[in-house]
């Protein structure tokens, strides 16, 4: 099977996709299927697990093994799938409500344990399936059906949460940027351990334009930066802006102004163990500093499902072919004759 090549088409199911026309989830689905095609893992070795919400309908549209589970629990179910059979390529598709509200606990623990699953967090900053309530990523003051006077709570930042939970892979992409989306999906799948991809998507019905300030062609190049390992952190329509360290902070500069040359610009190191700079990059909002897209952190560490399997292998090597009856004889026993 390793010799066979696949394309995105091999991962399209016979189900009609039923998101609203213009929904950002279509683009995410496409980029996931393209990445799947490129990975070379066959559909029958692929599992897609989701929770509840618009985004969680995604497994129905992928030709693979899939489970559309219950609200918030996809990370736990995906953990069970991967630990039980580490040979599978396991994707978890979730939304900002599913992952960060009701499923927040499972999310941070899947990240902390470093289970080798690819978590695609589709973030449209709204509850769509229940028709327009604010979510844990909605901005302070956001007006919705359940916050008619504006929210009075700070949102989560998925990058902070992932890195705070000791995550070793975090990437971000925009629904409209197919190239980066596909790139980060592939990187996430190839990363050994838990990978989190935050896909910023648009909800045309209940939160239209929420990422407009970043995604509009007009500003995208100046308000976002696509990070690539080993490449200088340069952005802007004219590729003339860059990031430097200024004291303890990041600072955006223009190359050629104030004596700044390309050599002064930071080079992205996604593999750096220390997460301090990744934290700062993940925190850039697109206002003073460009919002970071691409793979922000990609560091290898001990992988939970592999470690569990290794313990089993080691234990079995010590007592090969051990059956229950052999084990029971090791207990304190006595004979009745």
């Amino acid at each position: 099977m390793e010799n066979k090549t696949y394309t995105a088409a091999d991962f399209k199911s016979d189900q009609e996709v039923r998101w609203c026309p213009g929904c950002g989830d279509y683009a995410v689905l496409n980029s996931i299927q393209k990445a799947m095609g490129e990975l070379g893992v066959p559909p029958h070795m692929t599992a897609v697990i989701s929770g509840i919400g618009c985004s969680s309908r995604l497994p129905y549209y992928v030709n693979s093994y899939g489970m559309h589970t219950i609200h918030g629990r996809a990370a736990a179910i995906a953990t069970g799938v991967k630990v039980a059979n580490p040979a599978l390529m396991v994707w978890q598709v979730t939304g900002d409500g599913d992952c960060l509200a009701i499923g927040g606990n499972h999310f941070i623990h899947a990240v902390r344990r470093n289970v080798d699953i690819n978590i695609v967090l589709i973030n449209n900053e709204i509850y769509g399936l229940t028709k327009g309530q604010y979510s844990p990523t909605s901005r302070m003051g956001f007006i919705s059906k359940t916050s008619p006077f504006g929210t009075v709570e700070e949102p989560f930042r998925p990058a902070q949460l992932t890195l705070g939970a000791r995550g070793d892979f975090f990437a971000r992409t925009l629904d409209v940027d197919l190239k980066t989306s596909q790139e980060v999906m592939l990187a996430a799948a190839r990363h050994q351990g838990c990978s989190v991809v935050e896909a910023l998507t648009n909800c045309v019905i209940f939160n239209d334009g929420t990422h407009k300030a970043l995604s509009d062609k007009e500003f995208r190049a100046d308000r976002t930066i696509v990070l690539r390992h080993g490449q200088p952190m340069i952005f802007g329509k004219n590729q003339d802006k860059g990031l430097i360290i200024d004291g303890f902070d990041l600072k955006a500069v223009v190359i050629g102004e104030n004596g700044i040359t390309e050599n002064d610009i930071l080079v992205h190191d996604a593999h750096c163990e220390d997460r301090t700079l990744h934290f700062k990059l993940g925190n850039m909002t697109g206002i003073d500093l460009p919002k970071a897209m691409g793979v922000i952190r990609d560091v290898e560490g001990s992988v939970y499902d592999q470690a569990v399997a290794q313990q089993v292998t080691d234990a079995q090597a010590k007592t090969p072919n051990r059956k229950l009856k052999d084990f029971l004889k090791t207990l304190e026993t006595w004979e009745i004759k």
Partner: protein
Amino acid sequence: MSDTAKMTSLEKVVIRFSGDSGDGMQLTGSLFSNLSAIYGNEISTFPDYPAEIRAPQGTTSGVSGYQVHVGSTRIYTPGDLADVLIAMNPAALKVNKRNIKPSAIVIVDEDAFDKAGMNKAHFKTENPFLELGMTGIQLISAPISTMVKASLSESEMDNKSILRSKNMFALGLLCWLFNIPVDTAMHLLENKFKKKPAILSANLKVLVDGYNFGHNTHASVSTYHVDATDMPKGTYTDVKGNQATAYGLIAASEKSGLPLFLGSYPITPATEILQELAARKDMGVKTVQAEDEIAGVCTAIGASFTGSLAATSTSGPGLALKSEAIGLAVMAELPLVVVDVQRGGPSTGLPTKTEQSDLLQALYGRNGESPCVVIAASTPSNCFDYAFMASKLAVEHMTPVILLTDGFLANGSSAWRLPDLDNYPPIVPPFVHADMQETWKPYFRNPENGSRYWAIPGMEGFEHRVGGLEKDHCTSAISTDAKNHQRMTDLRQAKIDRIADVIPQLEVQGDPDAELLLVGWGGTFGHLYSAMEELNAEGYKVALAHFNYISPLPKNTEEVLKRFPKVVVCELNMGQFAGYLRTKISGIAPLQFNKVEGQPFMVEEIKEHVKSIINA
């Protein structure tokens, strides 16, 4: 042995070990029960410990107990009231007043009965025995602490460590009292403390000193002897319900060829199941200690989807948290074993005490029409058999199965003959096979039992999606069609109902012409059976029908319940099973005997209740 000592033969004896929760009474009790079992006696044990790990020393809230029932005939319970009490301090004496017979032998560490000890237990006078009205007891008072200190004065241990050996002195004293050769006890300790030579030598010395103390100073006291039982030949071990449950799951894994997966979260009194299985990687068992109860069951569902024999273990509060996920397994028709070791409720309730009050939660505690199988173990050792059966039913019928045990079974122990797996039925997972590929859909069913077929990741050509949304009965696409939902609801219910075809019929034990039928389920079996036997011996016409299979009920349930003039359903709740029987079988009006004290039944109270009905 002293030639002058009198020795009395006993058929059964109940011994209660009691002290501070740090006194090592659980260990002493289990060592004594092992000794008796090795000698060939029947044993049944039950620990009764506080929820606090170390409550303030010497107080009544910190008293920890361990009861052992030893017999030369079949024994079904750890016994009602104790014949012998070992009380390591005044608080232990006070707490156990209600747990012993008026004429019991009471062994105390008199050093602990000083002013401070008496004050901590809130005694008001100087004579605790008179104050408690224990006038009929036979007291063996020994300065245990003083003697242990003297015994180990040469050792290099500090005072605190020395006093930790007090329990071994008590064990030695009991060996003398029950004519158990001290060599046997020494041998047991040598095995137990193999890796801790310093502790071993201290314990051995104190054990022998305790034995000699009894022998030398109480040579004229009557000692006891319990004859060996006529047990079936074989290799035996002393097994607790939680251990047996874990082993039963392993046996089912071996028999089915499916790898075993347990997703669980620590909770009293179920935690030992997770602990046992976490240690069994040598048999390929994978365990995940999840972040919460929900993740425990969800990881198991994930593993089940992948083709493992998947289980989760918990107690009542955890079962409540798992209910939505169990509903997912009902809907997706995936095998799942849920072990609920029941404890006192509601809410956090009485974590270390036993109860049968989760029955209705197991049967009905989910949203929607959500039928699943519910079965119950009835002795510590048959937790093995029912864990095995729970797995078999789950896998072969593609359904969640809830196995109910309880704190009494989980922590209680009995002698268990090591099983021969050849005597257990096969477990055949209903995997799809290659020739189905063309026509197969996820909800195609085996016409024999209504179960769907199982396709797992890795099987090429069987890629499919399942989930919590209602699906078309044929294509398995999402469906909100009205008729389809009714049809799927019926199919899910019928699948469970048809399991009645493969489970054993309900047995009636005791007097076939009984005028009164005792009905029980789960962990109360030993007490009900003992009561029934003793009542029969006293001439009362009583029988017992004890349920292990609850949903579905055995097919002959109605016939059995209508065969006897009077039916009394006895359970450790307010009447949940009695109510369930009334809804399932029309035209019956069983009487009830209920108790919700966090404690097992007493054989005596069941007998009295039965007599009051028959004699009325």
